[in-house]
């Protein structure tokens, strides 16, 4: 403890008088996935735009409302409610505080007349459809798996797209493909006890591997690390697909198992909204829907697997992308 004292008065980017705040769903910002991606938009704005930020994690659903009202009291210019579960709370807050601006990620506006609440939502089934096709094509056993962190629409949307993508491969090639962990017609599948249940995630993955799955799609936030552990334990040649962020980049320690990631580009969306506001734009409550078309969602590149994915498949994925964009392919059937 004999180091020299630092000089006073260092500070970051020049600051602007704008405060952006965020309230998380149940869970922490550092979930290596959903929350983290949204939060990164905030910190990016802090670094690059010099805005002030504040955040609150919600330990339970009971915290949503106090967290939001504390943000209002803390004089936030814009408040991001990150997560589907915050819908009710943020809708109520928006109605009660017409002068504040709110953004809901994964949520929707309950009351048509609300003009201070902007939803940011994603059509994740589109990119997941590509992922499913890719997984089926990549798999040598033609058994692939998926599981969710909770059985909610925001999660099963991914899984359904994945399922039909794989089935598209099946119909196209005539090779039967088994998808473990989700059956959209019966709406039954495998889910952990929430996004923190790494033990459950590991065992579900192990079970799928034991049933010969060699590509797994964990739609469960940061729980891919548990899937990775299950892969290690099995000693088999199994890969998984990341979600939300490009896992091979954000968590490079897993890169050699990440075939690709299904991106949900919340960082950009959050940053863009703040940037617009700081730039003086009037608040625009029209929903933002991330699609393949506008690049809000999509597949990351193949990283270390680039040479293992044939050009043929890559071309096919392009073709599917175009098909989804022009509406000729429905990723939900």
């Amino acid at each position, binding site marked *: 403890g004999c180091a020299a004292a630092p000089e006073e008065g260092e500070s970051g980017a020049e600051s602007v008088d704008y405060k952006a705040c965020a309230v998380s769903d149940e869970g*922490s910002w*550092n979930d290596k996935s959903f929350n983290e991606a949204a939060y990164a938009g905030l910190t990016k704005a802090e670094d690059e735009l010099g805005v002030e930020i504040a955040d609150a994690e919600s330990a339970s659903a009971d915290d949503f409302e106090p967290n939001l009202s504390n943000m209002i009291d803390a004089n936030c210019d814009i408040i991001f409610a990150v997560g589907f579960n915050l819908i009710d709370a943020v809708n109520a807050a928006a109605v009660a505080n017409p002068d504040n601006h709110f953004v809901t990620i994964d949520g929707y506006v309950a009351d048509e007349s609300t003009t201070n609440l902007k939803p940011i939502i994603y059509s994740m089934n589109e990119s997941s459809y590509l992922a499913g096709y890719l997984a089926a094509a990549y798999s040598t056993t033609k058994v692939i798996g998926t599981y969710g962190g909770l059985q909610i629409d925001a999660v099963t949307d991914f899984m359904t797209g994945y399922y039909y993508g794989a089935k598209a491969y099946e119909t196209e090639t005539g090779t039967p493909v088994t998808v473990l962990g989700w059956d959209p017609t019966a709406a039954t599948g495998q889910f952990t*006890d929430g996004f923190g249940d*790494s033990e459950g995630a590991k065992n579900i993955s192990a*079970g799928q591997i034991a*049933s010969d799955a060699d590509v797994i799609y964990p739609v469960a936030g940061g729980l891919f*690390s548990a899937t990775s552990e299950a892969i290690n334990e099995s000693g088999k040649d199994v890969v998984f697909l990341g979600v939300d962020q490009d896992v091979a980049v954000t968590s490079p320690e897993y890169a050699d198992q990440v075939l690709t990631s299904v991106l949900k580009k919340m960082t950009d969306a959050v940053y863009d909204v703040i940037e617009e506001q700081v730039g003086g734009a009037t608040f625009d409550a029209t929903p933002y829907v991330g699609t393949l078309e506008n690049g809000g969602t999509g597949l990351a590149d193949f990283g270390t697997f680039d040479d293992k994915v044939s050009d043929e498949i890559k071309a096919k994925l392009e073709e599917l992308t175009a098909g989804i964009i022009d509406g000729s392919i429905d990723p939900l059937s």
Partner: protein
Amino acid sequence: MTAVISTPVVHTVTEIPRKWKVSIVLGVLSVVAFVLFGLLGDAREALIVFSETSDAIVLPNVPVTSKVLCIVVGILLLALAAVSFWYTVGRRTVPMWLIIAFTILFLVSLVTFTGAGSKIPVVFLISGSIALATPVIFGSLAGVIGERVGVVNIAIEGQLLAGAFVSAVVASITDSLTLGLIAALVGGALVSMVLAAFSIKYLVDQIIVGVVLNALVIGITNFFYAAVLNDNSTETNFPGTLPFLPIPVLSDIPVIGAVLFDQRITTYIMFVLVPLVWFILFKTKIGLRIRAVGEHPLAADTVGINVNRTRFWTVSIAGTIAGLGGAALTLGSVGAFVREMSAGQGFIALACVILGRWNPWLAALAALLFGFSKNFRIFAGQTGADIPPDLIAMVPYLVTLVAVAGLVGRVVGPAAAGKPYVKQ
């Protein structure tokens, strides 16, 4: 001091009341298995998979018709239930082997029924159950030892959590899994020592200290998780996992090899600890003293055994075992620590202590049953059996409840468990 000696008079036993409960439960279950899984069962084929193609010795997969196998097993179950009725009619207690054999056969039937039309990966079913049971077994061993010496340990949950936390953090920071394991021992012991000190020295009710300690450990780990681990998780919460240590030759035996001889050090320790704890408790000098202290501390005191010191150290050492259970959750399974990751397994361990009648072997079996019910949820989810997943998730707890209320009921534990010993 007006304690009353009231000794029941011993007479020749005339009429032992018949206790029908066990037989009736077995009877009902055997009929369920025979009719529901067998007669009304699924006629599709289930493929029983014993080995991976990559195994040294590959056993062939066995296709069976689910319904047929269930009928066969159902008949065996009916036979066992009949034997249990025969025991009851003869006023004898149904032996433990029968209950265990019945349980195993029933599970075979259940799995075969559920696996109709798909694969039954035997190794996954067994080793997954063991993996899920491991922390619970460690916890219940700690509980058994604690109650045997007279200290009720409700804080198993906290000990598991503390062990999980410190092992992940220490292993992560020092980059040494060995140090992580050692830290887990220390972490579990520390929680135990607080429990011991408060209940032995300050005479606070053991259940209350236990409950409060659980809350405190949850609070502390949550706090450090949020304040420290969260921000630089790659340095502080990325320990990796213990390597698998296959035992040469033995690990090549089909099924058994993978289940018993290709495991992590934590699992091997668990395999060794169950018999070891049993041996120490029932075959050694220190074990005799531990049990004496838990049964009748004053009597132990009168033969020169230091009751409170014995309690303190025994409970503390039991804490190291629970701490290892915590390490089994992190280093022995998924690596990183997650908030409140013990998720009630300490309480399940407590139930296993009672279900296992304060015997390490039986407690471990109870924990295995719990592990199996958790694993079954995964298996059933995968075979696409159309039982609502929320209801399947409920099964382990329902099984424990029924077992505690239905089968065990009023069992007698160590007489002095839960009572402080005060010396004049």
